[in-house]
C-alpha cells in the first residue's frame, strides 16, 4: 500500500529541515567559539552559521562513513547533539547592520521572489529526475546509507570525487530519501542569495547586491541545478563566502574570521574538485596583505581539515589521492589513463565545440546565454550583457569582484558545461550590478528594474520554451502534484526518465548483492543493486572490451606476430613497443612461447611484468581469445611486456596474438640470458592473419563477466553509445550464454548463465 502523501511530505520536510538545523547549530556553536559570531550581523549569522556548520556536519558524516556508523539513530543523535550544543549559551545581540533599514525597496522584488519560490520549491520537493542526481550523486548516497558507510568502491569513478555535499545529502537521505537531499541543495541556493544580500549590506552596496542576487538566482541553469541534488550552487556559496570573508577580514583584520576563511576555502575542495582554487586564492590574498605566517597557517590548517580526509580516502582506497584524475602520476588499477584523457577531452569539448577550431569559442556567449543545448544549461539572455560588468573595474570593489569572476571561471575551461560557470556567475552578476549602479541612481534603478523584470520573464519556464527550442536542461512547470506526492513518485519519475523503469526492473529481478553490467549509465539512484557502467571504471572498460571483442573484428585476435630465432636458453623475454601515437593503444590478446615446434604451456611460476598497466598482464597469458592486456595509454616508445622464468628455458619462437586496432605499433623482442643481460634477439618477424573464433569468444565473454562477479547484463536494443553490442546479443543471447529475464521497451536484462 502506498504511504500517505502527507506522511511522505512530512518525512521530506523533516529530513531536510533537520539537516539544515543541525548544520546551523554546528555553525553557531563553532563560530561562537572562535568569536566570529560576535562580529557578525544577524543575517551574516544565519548565512555563515548554516554554511560553516554544514561544512562541519559534512565532516562528521564523513567520519561516520569511515567508521561504518551510518545508522538513522546515530544520525538522529548526532543532529540532536549539535542542535543542543548550538542552542546553549547566552545569545549576544547581533551587531547592527551597516546600511540596515535602507533596503526597503527590495520588497519590490517580492512578487518575483514569490513566483520563483513557488516554482523552485515545487521542483526541489519533487522526486529526483536530474541526470547526475538520479545517477551518481544519490546512487552513491543511497549506497553509503545501505552499507552504513564507505566501502571499497573502485567500479565508479564518481565515488572517487570529493563528496562533501553527498555527506549532507546522506544525512537528509536517511530520513527523507531523494527529495530531502534536493532540498538540502536548495537551501544552499537560498543561502547564496542571502549571502549576496548580506554582502551588500556589509559593504554598503545593498541595491547592486540585491539586483545581482536576482540576476543570479533567476538564471535557468541556477534554478535547475539548485533544485537538484547537484553541488554547483553549494560551491557557488562557498567560493563567494571565501571572497566575502576575505574582504571583511581586510576591513578589520579580525583573527576570529580566519577559521571561517579556512573552512570555507577547504570545503570548496570537499564539495567539488573545481573548487580547489579557493584555498590558493585565500592564502594568496593573506600573503598579499603581508600577514604573518601564523595567520596564513591557521587558514591553511582549517582548510586542510576539509581537504585531507578526501585525499586520504582516495590514497587508501584507490592509491591516488587525486583520483579519478592524475592517474599518470599515481598509476592504479581502477581508472585508466586513457579514460582520463578521453574524459578530460570531452569535458573540454561538449558536442565537439572547439575541438579543432579555437574560433568556436566565439559561439560560446550565445551558446551559454541563449541556446544552451550543447552545453547542457542556459544562463539566460541577460548574461549577453556580462561584459558590462567590466565597467565596475573603475572602483576597487568592482576590481575585486571581477578578479573573483575571472578566477572562479577558470575551472570552466576544464569542463565547459554551463553549470560549471555557476560559482563565477555570482561574481559576474555582482560586477554587472555594480556597473549599473555606478550610473546616476534614477538611471540605475530604472535599468535594474527593467533588466530584473525582463530576466524574470525570459527565464520563466513557459516563456523560455517560446524562445528556446533547444533540448536544454532547465526547469519545466512547477510539479506540485509530484512534490506533494499526490502523483505517485514512480509515475512522475518514469514519465520524466524512462530508464527509471530499467532501474526498477533491476531491483525486481536481480537478487540482493547481484552485480549488473550496463554499457550506458542508468538512473541508478533508483536501484539498490550495484550497476557497473562501461566507462566509469577500469573494470567497466575491461568488461566492455570483452563484450566488444566478439563483435568488432578489429578488437579480436586476428593478427599473429611470430618472432623466430635460433634456439637459446633464456631467463626472460620481453617486447618493447617503439612507436608513438596520440590515441592508439597497444594490446596483446595472447603471448605464446615455443621451443622448436612445442608450445610451452604457461606456468604459475612465470612472472609477468607490463609497463604501463601491469595489473592486467595475466590477460595476455590466460588462453582466452576474448581477453587482452591493454596499455590503456596511447602508444609511446618504451612500453613493454615481459615474461620471466625461474630457470633458463630453451626458446626459439614467440607469437603475439593481437588485434588490428593498433596499426602503428612497432615491436622489438629482447631476451635475458642466463647471466641476466638483456639484449635484442636476432629474430625474424612474420605477420599473418587468422579469423578469431567468434562463437567461442562470445561464450568466453560471458564467462569473463561471471569471473569478475558480474552475473547480469542490461542493454538497450535501440543501440546508441556503447550499446552497439545490444543488437548482436539480442539476436542470439544463448550464443553468449545469456538468458533474457526482463524487458522494458528496448531495454533487456540478461542473466549470465555460463
Amino acid at each position, binding site marked *: 500500500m502506498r504511504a500517505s502523501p502527507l506522511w511522505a511530505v512530512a518525512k521530506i520536510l523533516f529530513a531536510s529541515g533537520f539537516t539544515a538545523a543541525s548544520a546551523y547549530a554546528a555553525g553557531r556553536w563553532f563560530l561562537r567559539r572562535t568569536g566570529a559570531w560576535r562580529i557578525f550581523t544577524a543575517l551574516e549569522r544565519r548565512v555563515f552559521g548554516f554554511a560553516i556548520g554544514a561544512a562541519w556536519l559534512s565532516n562528521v558524516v564523513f567520519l561516520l562513513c569511515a567508521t561504518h556508523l551510518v545508522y538513522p539513530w546515530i544520525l538522529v543523535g548526532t543532529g540532536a547533539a549539535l542542535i543542543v550544543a548550538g542552542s546553549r549559551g547566552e545569545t549576544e545581540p547581533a551587531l547592527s547592520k551597516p546600511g540596515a533599514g535602507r533596503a526597503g525597496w527590495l520588497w519590490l522584488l517580492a512578487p518575483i521572489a514569490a513566483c520563483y519560490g513557488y516554482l523552485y520549491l515545487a521542483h526541489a520537493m519533487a522526486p529526483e529526475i536530474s541526470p547526475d542526481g538520479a545517477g551518481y550523486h544519490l546512487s552513491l548516497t543511497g549506497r553509503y546509507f545501505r552499507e552504513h558507510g564507505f566501502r571499497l568502491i573502485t567500479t565508479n569513478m564518481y565515488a572517487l570525487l570529493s563528496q562533501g555535499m553527498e555527506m549532507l545529502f546522506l544525512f537528509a537521505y536517511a530520513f527523507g530519501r531523494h527529495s530531502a537531499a534536493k532540498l538540502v541543495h536548495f537551501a544552499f541556493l537560498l543561502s547564496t542569495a542571502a549571502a549576496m544580500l548580506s554582502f551588500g549590506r556589509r559593504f554598503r552596496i545593498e541595491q547592486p547586491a540585491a539586483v545581482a542576487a536576482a540576476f543570479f538566482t533567476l538564471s535557468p541553469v541556477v534554478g535547475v541545478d539548485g533544485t537538484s541534488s547537484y553541488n554547483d550552487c553549494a560551491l557557488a556559496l562557498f567560493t563567494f563566502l571565501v571572497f566575502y570573508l576575505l574582504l571583511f577580514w581586510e576591513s578589520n583584520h579580525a583573527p576570529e574570521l580566519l577559521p571561517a576563511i579556512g573552512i570555507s576555502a577547504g570545503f570548496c575542495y570537499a564539495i567539488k574538485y573545481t573548487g580547489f582554487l579557493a584555498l590558493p586564492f585565500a592564502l594568496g590574498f593573506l600573503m598579499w596583505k603581508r600577514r604573518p605566517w601564523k595567520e596564513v597557517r591557521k587558514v591553511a590548517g582549517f582548510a586542510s581539515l576539509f581537504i585531507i580526509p578526501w585525499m586520504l580516502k582516495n590514497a587508501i582506497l584507490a*592509491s591516488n589521492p587525486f583520483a579519478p584524475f592524475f592517474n599518470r602520476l599515481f598509476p592504479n588499477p581502477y581508472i585508466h589513463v586513457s579514460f582520463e584523457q578521453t574524459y578530460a577531452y570531452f569535458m573540454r569539448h561538449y558536442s565537439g565545440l572547439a575541438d579543432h577550431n579555437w574560433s568556436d569559442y566565439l559561439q560560446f556567449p550565445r551558446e551559454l546565454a541563449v541556446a544552451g543545448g550543447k552545453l547542457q544549461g542556459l544562463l539566460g539572455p541577460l548574461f549577453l550583457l556580462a561584459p558590462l560588468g567590466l565597467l565596475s573595474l573603475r572602483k576597487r570593489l568592482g576590481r575585486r569582484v571581477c578578479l573573483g569572476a575571472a578566477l572562479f571561471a577558470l575551472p570552466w575551461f576544464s569542463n565547459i558545461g554551463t553549470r560549471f560557470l555557476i560559482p563565477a556567475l555570482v561574481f559576474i552578476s555582482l560586477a554587472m550590478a555594480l556597473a549599473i549602479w555606478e550610473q546616476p541612481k534614477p538611471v540605475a534603478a530604472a535599468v535594474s528594474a527593467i533588466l530584473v523584470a525582463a530576466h524574470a520573464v525570459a527565464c520563466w519556464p513557459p516563456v523560455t520554451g517560446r524562445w528556446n527550442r533547444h533540448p536544454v536542461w532547465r526547469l519545466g512547470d512547477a510539479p506540485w502534484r509530484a512534490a506533494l506526492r499526490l502523483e505517485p513518485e514512480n509515475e512522475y519519475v518514469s514519465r520524466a526518465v524512462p530508464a527509471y523503469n530499467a532501474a526498477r526492473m533491476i531491483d525486481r529481478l536481480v537478487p540482493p548483492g547481484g552485480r549488473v553490467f550496463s554499457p550506458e549509465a542508468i538512473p541508478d539512484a533508483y536501484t539498490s543493486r550495484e550497476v557497473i557502467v562501461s566507462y566509469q571504471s577500469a573494470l567497466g572498460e575491461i568488461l566492455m572490451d570483452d563484450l566488444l571483442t566478439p563483435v568488432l573484428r578489429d578488437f579480436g585476435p586476428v593478427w599473429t606476430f611470430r618472432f623466430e630465432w635460433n634456439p637459446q636458453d633464456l631467463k626472460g623475454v620481453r617486447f618493447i613497443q617503439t612507436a608513438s601515437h596520440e590515441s592508439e593503444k597497444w594490446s596483446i590478446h595472447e603471448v*605464446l612461447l615455443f621451443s622448436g615446434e612445442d608450445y610451452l604451456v*604457461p606456468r604459475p611460476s*612465470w612472472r*609477468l611484468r607490463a609497463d604501463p598497466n601491469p595489473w592486467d*598482464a595475466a590477460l595476455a597469458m590466460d*588462453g582466452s581469445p576474448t581477453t587482452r592486456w591493454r596499455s590503456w595509454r596511447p602508444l609511446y616508445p618504451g612500453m613493454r611486456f615481459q615474461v620471466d622464468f625461474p630457470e633458463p628455458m630453451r626458446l626459439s619462437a614467440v607469437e603475439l596474438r593481437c588485434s588490428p586496432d593498433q596499426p602503428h605499433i612497432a615491436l622489438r623482442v629482447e631476451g635475458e640470458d642466463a647471466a641476466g643481460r638483456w639484449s635484442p634477439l636476432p629474430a625474424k618477424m612474420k605477420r599473418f592473419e587468422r579469423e578469431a573464433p567468434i*562463437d567461442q569468444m562470445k561464450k568466453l565473454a560471458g564467462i569473463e563477466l561471471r569471473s569478475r562477479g558480474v552475473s547480469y547484463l542490461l542493454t538497450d536494443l535501440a543501440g546508441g553509445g556503447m550499446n552497439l553490442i545490444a543488437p548482436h546479443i539480442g539476436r542470439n543471447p544463448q550464443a553468449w550464454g545469456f538468458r533474457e529475464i526482463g524487458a522494458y521497451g528496448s531495454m533487456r536484462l540478461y542473466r549470465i548463465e555460463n
Partner: protein
Amino acid sequence: VRIESHNRRQAAAVLAALLAGCQPEVVVSPPAQQRIPYRPEPVGRFVYMNQPDAEKYFISGIYGLESNAWRWAGPTAVLRFHLTETESLAYVMKFAVPRELTAQIVPVHLRILINGQRWQDLSYDQQGIYDLEKPAPAAILKPQSDNLVTIAIERPPVSDSRAPEPKFILVQVGFQPLAKKS
C-alpha cells in the same frame, strides 16, 4: 628511501613517490588454468550438430541448434577435430543447401580448407540435402593434434550489401575411417 642530496627536484620526486604509496613493482603470474583455444578441451574426429558437446568443435561461423538436429553455418564455418591417425580417413559431411541460399546465389560454391589449405571446391545448382564422403588428404592432416576444417561459401564478387549473410545447413561433419571396399 634515502635522499642523496638536497636537490629539491629529487625531494619532490620522493614526495610524489610517497604520495603514490611507494607501490612496489606489480608482478603477476599466468593463471594456473588455461582456456581455449590454446589448450582446448579435447574433441573427437566427428561431430553431430545435436550432440551435447558439439560447441567444443566450433571455432566460428556456426549458430544455435535448430529442431534438435541441425545448425545454420556460414558464410565461413570453422571447426576443429582431433585426429590421432591421419591415414585411411574419409571426410564426411551431411549438409543442406537451403532455398534461401539458392535464392541469393546460384550456383552455390562451397570451398573446404583443411588446416588452412584449399582441398575441395564444390558447386550446387539446386537446393537439397547432400552427403559428401571423400578420402581425406593425409598429407595435410596432422596426427595427434587438432585439425581445422573451414567450410566457406564463396560469394559473388558483386553482392548486395543489404542481403543477409549466406548460410547453409550443417547436420554432421568430420572424419571417419575409410570404408573398406570388398
